[in-house]
């Protein structure tokens, strides 16, 4: 008979608990992987469990998460579930392809919940093959205006899951750094943030503030100006070529990848190809008629644009009609 000291006993138990929880998680995750293939969302308890699993993973990630090529960069997807399937067909499915999504998973499209769930399930299955950055829509305030809140209310009948997801958004990294030379961030630069080290000191676990460095990183846009200008969005800044060059020089960067702005052609290089906007939501808001892109980095200097278009109507399932509460 093996005799264990109390400390050893607790150690063995907690180890066994961990192994069992991983095993049971694995079972759940595999089950969810099957479910989300058909544009489904998870039952309430399952999504809560998934959120807990992802929270544990995100806790361990840095504000500026280091990533190594080869990796494929994606811009806004905005709840366009069917188009995200097209994205994966274009770029390859994880774990074979490694991805960085630069935020704005939710709002605008009809399937924010299904889209977010799919990305979270992939993340749970292959934590190191997907990096999910925060965008300006991963926020309580914005999701209440632009649809995700209403979608959760409609699909779950309460706001609990929306709250869970918002807690998760708070934990998402602000940026990613590919091979130490390519910075990926949702919006752009901030006059308050001169170095990547400064980004690393941000207390990111919070709702995106209305102003200041963190807000700017989520909201700013590049523009054909010299330095800085007030943004018509009411948050963040317009930044020109000079601050971009300065920031890149100070941080020894070769490229800044960002999303946040619709580009009709799917991708747009600016500032002598030192900054790129990647847009991954084709036919944005069901009206813009734009194409979408992803950017595949073979190495940090060798990258390839892949374009894709919106999925045709006949390949989408028609949901059953429900009654909006106002009309009961």
């Amino acid at each position, binding site marked *: 008979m093996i005799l264990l000291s109390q400390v050893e006993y607790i150690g063995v138990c907690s180890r066994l608990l961990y192994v069992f929880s991983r095993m049971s998680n694995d079972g759940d995750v595999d089950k969810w992987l099957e479910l989300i293939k058909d544009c489904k969302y998870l039952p309430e308890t399952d999504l809560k469990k998934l959120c807990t699993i992802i929270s544990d993973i995100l806790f361990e990630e840095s504000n500026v998460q280091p990533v190594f090529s080869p990796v494929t960069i994606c811009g806004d997807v905005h709840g366009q579930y069917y188009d995200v399937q097209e994205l994966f067909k274009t770029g390859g499915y994880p774990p074979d392809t490694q991805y960085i999504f630069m935020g704005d998973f939710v709002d605008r499209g009809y399937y924010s919940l299904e889209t977010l769930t799919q990305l979270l399930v992939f993340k749970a299955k292959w934590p190191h093959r997907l990096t999910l950055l925060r965008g300006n829509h991963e926020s309580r305030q914005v999701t209440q205006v632009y*649809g995700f809140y209403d979608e959760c209310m409609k699909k779950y009948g309460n706001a609990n899951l929306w709250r869970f997801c918002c807690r998760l958004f708070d934990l998402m990294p602000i940026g990613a750094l590919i091979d130490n030379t390519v910075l990926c961030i949702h919006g752009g630069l901030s006059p308050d943030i001169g170095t990547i080290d400064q980004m690393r000191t941000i207390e990111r676990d919070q709702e995106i503030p209305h102003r200041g460095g963190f807000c700017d990183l989520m909201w700013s846009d590049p523009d054909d100006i010299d330095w800085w200008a007030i943004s018509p969005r009411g948050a963040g800044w317009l930044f020109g070529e000079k601050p971009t060059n300065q920031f890149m020089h100070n941080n020894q960067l070769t490229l800044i990848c960002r999303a946040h702005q*619709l580009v009709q052609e799917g991708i747009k290089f600016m500032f002598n190809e030192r900054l790129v906007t990647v847009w991954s939501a084709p036919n944005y808001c069901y009206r813009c008629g734009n194409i979408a892109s992803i950017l595949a980095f073979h190495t940090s200097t060798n990258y390839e644009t892949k374009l894709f278009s919106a999925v045709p109507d006949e390949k989408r399932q028609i949901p059953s009609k429900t009654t909006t509460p106002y009309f009961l």
Partner: protein
Amino acid sequence: MMTTTTATLEQPTSTKLQQQPVKPETKIKDVPYMKQWKESKAYKEYTSFVLSLNQAIHGLKNSSPVSISPTLTKLIELIDKLDHFIDECPPKGRSRFGDAAYRDWHTKLEQECENLLKQTLPEEYHSYIIEIGPYLLDSFGNSTRLDYGTGHEMAFGLFLLCLCKIEALKEDDSKAIVLKLFNRYIELCRKLQRTYYLEPAGSKGQWCLDDYQFLPFLWGSSQFTDQSNIEPKQAVDERYYKNDHDANDYLYLAAIKYINEVKTGPFFEHSSTLYDISNVAQWSKVNQGMLKMYHGEVLDKFPIAQHILFGNLISFDLAPKRPPQRQQLDSSRSDNLFKKPTDINIPTATVQRHIDSENNNQHTD
């Protein structure tokens, strides 16, 4: 059917002392002011106004013969003139949302607003232009953000309410206000949206009715109530909305037709709320739902309400709790709206905290 709704407007009891028109301004600076807004005279009066117009057009087509006063005809001509401004401000080519040429159009509107209103209204109302003009200026979108939404549509509703309150429009105009004037206004707004690619302001997309408008659905569902030719489920059927004869005659169908012109992808995805509403059995139920939803999604939303302008006509004062005479809104009568304003007490030193609310104007991608 709105037969049980009661109006809570105060009948003018005091001596009819005409108030000095003032330049209206925003009052709802922060979320806590929403309570005061919901209890204000403006809120009560605007709600009654929307209801009485809803009632007035019950079962009528846009082409139904209705009485049109000379002022109303002139207001339609005013919209025609604004439409011609578009020809003078051709699109410049957009980058993101919004074409900068819209700013030229809006500048023309700002420059011409006073003159146009002078040409439109009989001289006795000219002193009110300083108070009424800003509502018209707000009715067609925001020139800084290059967007348009239900808040701008509401500004036009308040503009109409002002005209009724000073009696420039009379009760007899009720039907034509919606079927002719508002219909023409919506046509212009659609042209502006398409020409200048205006961004939907604060739109929930498919989780609300429509990116831009609300009232065409609300009043439009009243047009269908108690007329059995077209059922709710047929309104989203292209055999009906694509029929120009029907689309020209019904605000609701024209709105569905417009959505299908500007949006691609499946209707059940990009307009899921309208898709679900098509499942409601009766138009009276749709109409009731629209009224509830107008409160829930437009009037009671801070991001929209923060832009509302208040003056003496659209008053931020507290509405009287117990109206001296409760009146049933069971007919198109709402004569208390068509009265020149009586003396109103201006609230004493309302403290307005200027806190940062800019985030509610944020434009997102």
